[in-house]
């Protein structure tokens, strides 16, 4: 029988206000095995931990139950405290009487009763705990960054500057991401390319950074410190070493009908292309869907004009397998599809555009060379209407329930830039709320109103009706004047909601990183661990975790990099000792467990077994504890109960069930 000490935390008043902690102490003392029980203000404090240590020494405790907050919060704290006081850290169990009790119940009697039951269950479990010892695994000193936008670039630069090798995997032909598509950035109106391009160059030139563009992550296996990743390098049909980036091939290419991804499909590009002038690497790719040579075997013009001899139509996809200690997801975002918003006539009129399309139109390298003009007839617009929250803050099934966060600011930016460059253009913004938390943000928005005379109307637009003469009839409401407004516009700009890049789901599944209902990756803790995924060794950078602007993204990228560096700086990691363990005497050798193991951690061997004096060589399971992650799938698959999970054994769980149902 264990000698168990129970420690009940008040958590200030968080627990004590709803749970009668004295009563819990009094009742839990009656449980078999409990030789000590006490309560304290803050068990997690230095003094609280000392109480545990003193009790271990004085009462010879062999097991500890702490009734406190969630084990996800302080299990590690109390395990360390126990270890310091000389008992095995895995002899500690937590009864979660805060998140699962005091915080959700109001009635003190009821909450106290439940707290006692939860404590009993923990005591019943500890009675069956056994000391466990973690194994060790080596750390591969190399990081993978998935996504080559500003988030990925910054993370990679920071990791590389700390002296570790980093690979960036980017699925498009160039790094740069969404930021490279922007014209200016708020709230200072710097030119986006002017501040991004140097970072791209830095990344490309960094000796510790290796960039795989036009590549995708195909498969991930392993675990923190020792991931093995397959990267598919898509056939580029251009030899990266030979190409000089002269651009002649793109000029001569006869197939110029492919919609330009970089310009959001607003104009066309050639089949062989670099997405934009500052692309890194400055090596084009051939789009096999449009290349005449690859489709019909005829043409081959680019090969003929290429003086470097870099064109290679025979190139094939290549799989690169690499080991990494840590993985950063920086997959970024896209704007939502607007096909469910017929009322805004996005698909009916070329002059109804998204804000990201406007960025391209205003950009000197864009489809209109930076001239503000209507895409339908090339005329200069006189009246522009901006509509906010298109698909954001929607609780219906058409849009997203969250605020996309960046739209208020970029719309103020657009309005201001237009009024600055074209003072005779009237700009109207329909808004629900203007949200400008951020340094110099509200000042920025006020300048748009006060200095640039942008007409902000509180209210929404109900519909946009294209007129026969090409004008757009905008019907909205002014909630302050309590008037319905009908106005003509020649351009309507929609602040479409942003959503995580579509490939993130697949990547999250490969990484077993959790994802929320909106496809944003979940952080390990919403406040305290915002750049880590709950999956060890996986970190989050940029909009894949939630909407954010450039400064926030860069800050988060740096934070993720520090977490990665902290991990890579270690030579060894302790592995989870809660692994599966077979009882050879009971093993049938049937292989059922191996069939469900996701890690291939179970193998079979013919082994001489001494079963109470009967010696027999037979086939039995053995678990590689370095590979086993402790999910327990095998324990249920095993019919004989031979396979058990250390730390969550069958008997332990049954004891908890019994204690709860008592």
């Amino acid at each position, binding site marked *: 029988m264990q000698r168990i000490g129970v420690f009940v935390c008040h958590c200030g008043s968080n627990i004590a206000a709803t749970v009668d902690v004295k009563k819990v102490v009094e009742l839990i003392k009656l449980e078999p095995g409990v030789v000590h029980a006490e309560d304290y203000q803050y068990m997690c404090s230095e003094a609280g931990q000392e109480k545990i240590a003193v009790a271990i020494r004085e009462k010879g405790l062999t097991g500890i139950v702490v009734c406190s907050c*969630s*084990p*996800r919060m302080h299990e590690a704290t109390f395990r360390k405290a126990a270890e310091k006081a000389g008992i095995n850290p895995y002899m500690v169990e937590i009864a*979660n009487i*805060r*998140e*699962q*009790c005091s*915080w*959700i*119940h*109001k*009635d003190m009697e*009821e*909450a106290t*009763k*439940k707290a006692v*039951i*939860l404590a009993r*269950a923990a005591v019943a479990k500890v009675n069956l705990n056994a000391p466990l010892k973690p194994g060790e695994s080596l750390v591969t000193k190399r990081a993978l960054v998935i996504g080559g936008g500003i988030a990925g670039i910054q993370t990679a630069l920071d990791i590389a500057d700390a002296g570790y090798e980093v690979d960036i995997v980017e699925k498009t032909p160039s790094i740069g991401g969404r930021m490279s598509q922007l014209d200016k950035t708020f709230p200072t109106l710097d030119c986006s390319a002017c501040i991004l391009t140097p970072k791209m160059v830095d990344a490309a030139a960094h000796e510790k950074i290796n960039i795989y563009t036009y590549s995708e992550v195909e498969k991930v296996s392993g675990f923190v410190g020792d991931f093995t990743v397959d990267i598919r390098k898509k056939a580029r049909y251009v030899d990266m070493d030979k190409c000089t980036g002269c651009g002649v091939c793109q000029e001569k290419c006869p197939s110029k009908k492919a919609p330009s991804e970089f310009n959001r499909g607003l104009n066309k590009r050639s089949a062989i292309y670099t997405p934009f002038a500052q692309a890194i690497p400055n090596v084009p790719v051939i789009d096999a869907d449009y290349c005449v040579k690859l489709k019909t075997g005829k043409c081959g013009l680019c090969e003929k004009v290429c003086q470097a001899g870099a064109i290679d139509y025979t190139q094939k996809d290549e799989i690169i397998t690499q080991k990494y200690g840590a993985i950063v997801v920086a997959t970024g975002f896209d704007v939502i599809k607007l096909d469910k918003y017929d009322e805004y006539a996005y698909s009916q009129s070329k002059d109804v555009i998204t804000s990201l399309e406007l960025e391209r139109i205003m950009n000197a390298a864009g489809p209109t060379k930076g001239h503000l003009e209507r895409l339908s007839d090339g005329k200069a617009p006189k009246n522009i209407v901006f509509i906010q929250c298109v698909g954001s803050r929607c609780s219906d099934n058409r849009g997203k329930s969250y605020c996309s966060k960046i739209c208020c600011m970029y719309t103020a930016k657009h309005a201001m830039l237009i009024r600055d460059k074209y003072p005779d253009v009237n700009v109207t913004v329909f808004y629900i709320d203007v949200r400008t938390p951020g340094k110099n943000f509200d000042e920025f928005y006020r300048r748009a109103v006060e200095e640039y005379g942008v007409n902000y109307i509180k209210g929404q637009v109900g519909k946009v009706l294209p007129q026969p003469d090409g004008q757009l009839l905008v019907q909205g409401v002014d909630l302050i004047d309590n008037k319905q407004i009908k106005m003509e516009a020649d351009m309507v700009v929609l602040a479409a909601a942003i959503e995580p890049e579509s490939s993130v*789901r697949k990547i*999250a*599944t490969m990484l*077993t990183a*959790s*994802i*929320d*209902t909106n496809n944003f990756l*979940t952080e390990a803790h919403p406040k305290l661990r915002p750049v880590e995924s*709950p*999956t060890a060794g996986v970190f989050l950078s940029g909009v894949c975790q939630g909407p954010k602007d450039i400064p926030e993204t860069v800050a988060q990228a740096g934070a993720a990099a520090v977490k990665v560096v902290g991990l890579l700086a270690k030579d060894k990691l302790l592995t989870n000792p*809660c692994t599966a363990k077979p009882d050879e005497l009971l093993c049938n050798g049937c292989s059922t467990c191996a069939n*469900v193991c*996701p890690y291939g951690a179970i193998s079979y061997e013919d082994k001489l077994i001494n079963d109470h004096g009967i010696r027999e060589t037979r086939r039995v399971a053995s678990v590689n504890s370095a590979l086993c*992650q*402790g*999910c*327990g*799938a095998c*324990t*249920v*698959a095993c019919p004989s109960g031979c396979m058990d*999970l250390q730390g*969550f054994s*069958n008997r332990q*769980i*049954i004891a*908890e*069930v*019994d204690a*709860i*149902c*008592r």
Partner: protein
Amino acid sequence: MSIKENEEFRPKIVAFCCNWCSYAGADLAGSSRLGYPADVKIIRVPCSCRVNPMFILRAFEKGADGVIICGCHPGDCHYSTGNYYARRRMTLLFSLLDYVGVEKGRTRVEWVSAAEGVKFSATMNEFVEKIRSLGKNVRLEDLRCRN
């Protein structure tokens, strides 16, 4: 011990929650103060695939009135495939329990992510309500366990 007629029926409910999603979802429900009845007691397991049918039957045998298993959404399992196995096992087990006359509402599987505190709380409220309407479990109880 029989329930007195004027006494409100307070069911015993065991909730198995996987450590990575649902337990964290329960924590989020807690820190968001989204209440649910105290009848629900949570047992932390590493993954929904750790839940052995033996545990469920044991709970019923010892007098539980309902058992709910919560895990990561399919596709989001921390161990990548655990909840897929759990899904098949529980589908078949629940179907058999229904077949032997255990009311279907007494067992439930719900996928709750770490971000779904609201869903966790709503699910538990709903489940407790359901069990209250079904009343005490007598069909799988071991009569010797009654006091």
